[in-house]
């Protein structure tokens, strides 16, 4: 480990140096010798790294922190999260602050090569350089881990990094630091900054066009990513955060649970590595901003009639297999069994997460303040018709509404 602790002056000097270098962002500016950060910068950087959920892509399950190797499945192929420990040969040990900022904020890699937007620089672009440097200082304070990662596992032609220059022209607004909205509260602005910037929530919760760019006009309206629903974060009765209050959203982010739901799947990792590590004030700020997002305006579906044959059959299966935990009213049990009534996951247009949970089960996230429960797998017990019927029933009971599920379920 490097020796921590110099002075605030050293940090100021780094910042001055960066301002000079930021002008030459695309150029081959030589790497500078690194100063080491003081403890408060390291702590601040650690917090910002948590807010940015760097671990999600850069810490492999069971692997050393930030040593890379996480598989990121994209519609274009596979990327691997890189090693961002300060190892000289395989990590970012010889990166300068400006190179770090160039990569994280502008998508420009170590030797000028363009990063893929699997690295969410299009969102991190809104983060001030000063904050990114603190993250760099924190990463530099970690033990270097030798772990050579070839991030680019994409097939031809996507493996040509030069293509990203064109992509950036189309989909990377490069608007720079987040600009507060003076008409909104400080808390709202803090939340907006975290959501739009470091939190990079849109990476999953905004659907992507055929080239992987954000669908404009559909921000936070939900998406299917890597065979899971990233539910909408907009606010309308049958979709998105809907019935959740600001406190519900904040509790979910802080503990992985609230009175309606428990986090599983990719969001469980986000909560473990990121939002549970944030202060409740920051999680509340995020919630405040999200709860201000307008409804999508899409028309709500009409529920399927209760006497539909699929609904009748599904109701019997529900009583046998589901009601013991989720109960007859579909309200579940706070902090333990998610409510199905009013659930965005249940009512998603393409409910892949719900079907996967029925087929394969799921493990709730456990946090220090709330322990985990789990959903058993029913794939061996129920056939496709039964799963389709019970899913249709759940999607159209207790005020829920969603299309009927066909029985061609992918196992």
């Amino acid at each position, binding site marked *: 480990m490097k020796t921590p602790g110099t002075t605030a002056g050293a940090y100021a000097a780094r910042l001055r140096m960066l301002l000079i270098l930021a002008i030459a962002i695309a150029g081959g500016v030589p790497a500078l010798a690194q100063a080491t950060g003081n403890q408060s910068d390291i702590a601040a950087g650690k917090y910002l790294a948590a807010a940015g959920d760097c671990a999600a892509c850069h810490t492999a399950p069971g692997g050393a922190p930030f040593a890379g190797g996480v598989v990121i499945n994209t519609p274009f192929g596979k990327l691997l999260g890189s090693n961002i420990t300060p190892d000289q040969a395989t990590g970012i040990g010889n990166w300068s602050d400006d190179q770090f900022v160039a990569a994280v904020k502008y998508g420009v890699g170590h030797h000028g090569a363009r990063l893929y937007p699997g690295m969410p620089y299009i969102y991190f672009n809104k983060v001030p350089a000063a904050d990114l440097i603190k993250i760099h200082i924190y990463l530099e304070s970690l033990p270097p881990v030798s772990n050579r990662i070839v991030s680019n596992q994409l097939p031809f032609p996507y493996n040509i990094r030069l293509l990203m220059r064109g992509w950036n022209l189309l989909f990377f607004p490069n608007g720079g630091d987040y600009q507060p909205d003076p008409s909104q509260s400080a808390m709202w602005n803090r939340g907006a900054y975290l959501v739009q910037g470091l939190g990079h929530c849109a990476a999953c919760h905004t659907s992507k066009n055929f080239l992987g760019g954000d669908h404009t006009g559909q921000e936070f309206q939900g998406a299917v990513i890597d065979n899971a629903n990233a539910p909408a974060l907009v606010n309308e009765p049958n979709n998105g955060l809907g019935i959740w209050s600001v406190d519900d959203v904040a509790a979910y982010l802080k503990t992985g649970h609230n009175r309606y739901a428990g986090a599983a799947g990719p969001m469980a990792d986000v909560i473990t590595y990121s939002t549970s590590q944030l202060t409740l004030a920051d999680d509340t700020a995020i919630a405040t901003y999200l709860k201000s997002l307008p409804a999508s305006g899409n028309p709500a579906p009409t529920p399927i009639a209760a006497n539909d044959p699929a609904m009748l059959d599904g109701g019997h299966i529900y009583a046998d297999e589901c009601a013991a935990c989720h109960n007859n009213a579909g309200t579940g049990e706070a902090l333990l069994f998610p409510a199905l009534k009013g659930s965005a996951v249940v009512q998603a247009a393409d409910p892949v997460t719900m079907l996967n949970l029925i087929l394969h089960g799921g493990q709730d996230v456990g946090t*220090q303040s709330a322990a985990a429960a789990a959903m058993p797998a029913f794939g061996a017990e129920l056939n496709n018709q039964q799963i389709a019927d019970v899913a249709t029933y759940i999607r159209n009971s207790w005020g829920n509404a969603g299309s009927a599920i066909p029985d061609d379920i992918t196992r």
Partner: protein
Amino acid sequence: MAQKLPHKDVVIIGLGWTGSIMAYELTGAGLDVVAIERGAWRDTATDFPPATSPDELRYQIRLDLFQRTAQSTVTMRNNASQTALPVRQWGSFIPGNGVGGAGVHWNGMTFRFLESDYQLRTHLTQRYGKHAIPDNMTIQDYPVTYTELEPYFDKFEKLLGICGTAGNLNGVIQPGGNPFEGPRRSEYPNPPDRQPLGSTMFAKAATEIGYHSFPMPSANMSRSYTNTLGVTLGQCSFCGFCERFGCGNYAKSSPQTCVLPALMPRKNFEARTLCNVTRINLDSTGKKATGVTYVDEHMVEYEQTADLVLVCSFSFNAVHMLLISGIGTPYDPVSGTGVVGRNYAYQTDSGVTVKLPNVLLNPFISGGAVGMAVDDFNGDNFDHGGLGFFGGSVMQATQTGGRPITQIASFKDDPKWGSGWKRAMRENYQTVYSLGAQGSVFSYKDAYLDLDPTYKDPYGSPLLRMTFDWHDNELKMSAYITEKLAGIATAMGGTKIEQLPRLAPYTVVPYQSTHNTGGAVMGDDPSTSVVNKYLQSWDVPNVFVFGAAVFPQNAGYNPTGTVGALTYFAADAIKNQYLKNPGPLVAI
């Protein structure tokens, strides 16, 4: 040659209730803890989800969650003149296995013993005279009082979320609770379970006679409950599959639903499953344990060194571990000297079968500990003068389920096969109720555990040998209690009543109770106890023994409440005294 593993602060043998609680407490104190469990890892959603857990054939009959006799068993004889034979198929008792231990498949009845139960010899001597206790009866006082244990009962009940009605709050008798219980500092953390028809009729009849009925203290959640470790349990759905089954919907207190979700994320805890500890190792002085040797599922042998060894396995497995490891002097029934294996005791189960006219009992609506109880004839709550016995039973109406293979009550003269049997079963299912009584078993010079001279386990160690038979005291008690129970059955309006008192000789079939106690009993005197009041071995002070093996004799209740309170009591002593100054916590 055993492969040596990196040193740990603490090694725990067995990851059930006591093992998981101690692991939580000691990892919380900053120690590096490994638990070594003979059976498999188990969790709710994977191993006993609601869709598959109510499988009577798999769990009740084929005993899927239990210790296999091929892993280890005991040999059994009634007295020293007989040759003990191995129990090859479980009957009278069924030890648990796997993570969670018996805490996975218990019913959930969570009593505190009576105040006098913890001072038994002193109490009986004071009330009935110093010659009242027969010579061969080796009952003794616990080295702790109820008052000392009370805060730890409270802690255990709040961990589990026990449902019930207090009968004695800080010395003030409460309506609806058990008036005989010792003072409790607080009400149960959850209200009592709602009662089905059978137990409602029992309570009404008992009250009419003048007895004091109260809801069974139950680990079947009457409502959703977040416990003291931040773990949430769900509400019991009254499915009737508790005993011998895992609970699919997180509604029965177990290590899985109460402790493990908070314990497992801790980086200073590790659980090794399918690993069988074969002995506790001692240094050359024989006064200090250096750790344990264990064998994994591939029969590869490991040595795990540790500063502290906690024996948290089932009662007779704990006694076996001490005997094969040479910790403490084995009990010799001839000379009456030695302590390990001494004072083995059990539970005296009695019953009454009653046919009730014009009822639909709907026995499938039930939970393992859902029911009503009467304590008027338990412990020394009634005058034993002239009765010719001591002790008593909790009398209870707990219909733990309406499972089709094993839970249709029948009378001895019901047809045993064919259409007559079918007719009787159809009729009995809704109308015949079984009342039960769990009675005390006192300890005796000739009821003990030792190592079998003939039979060995798969690891080459002698099996544990059980020498046990019923004594007149327990048989008389059972007959007396059964009569009282039949009185309640009559008051319930029973049209046919069959009494089922316990009869000698003791046999390992059929099932009676898995409340095997003693063999490593606690006490103030090393010549009559294996562990001191803090459950610490007198002989090897860095070994502690948990569970019902430490009971000097058994009371007329389920043991788990006392097991939990003793565990927390010892945990406090280990954290606050032993760790600061490792060594004997009680001077000899």
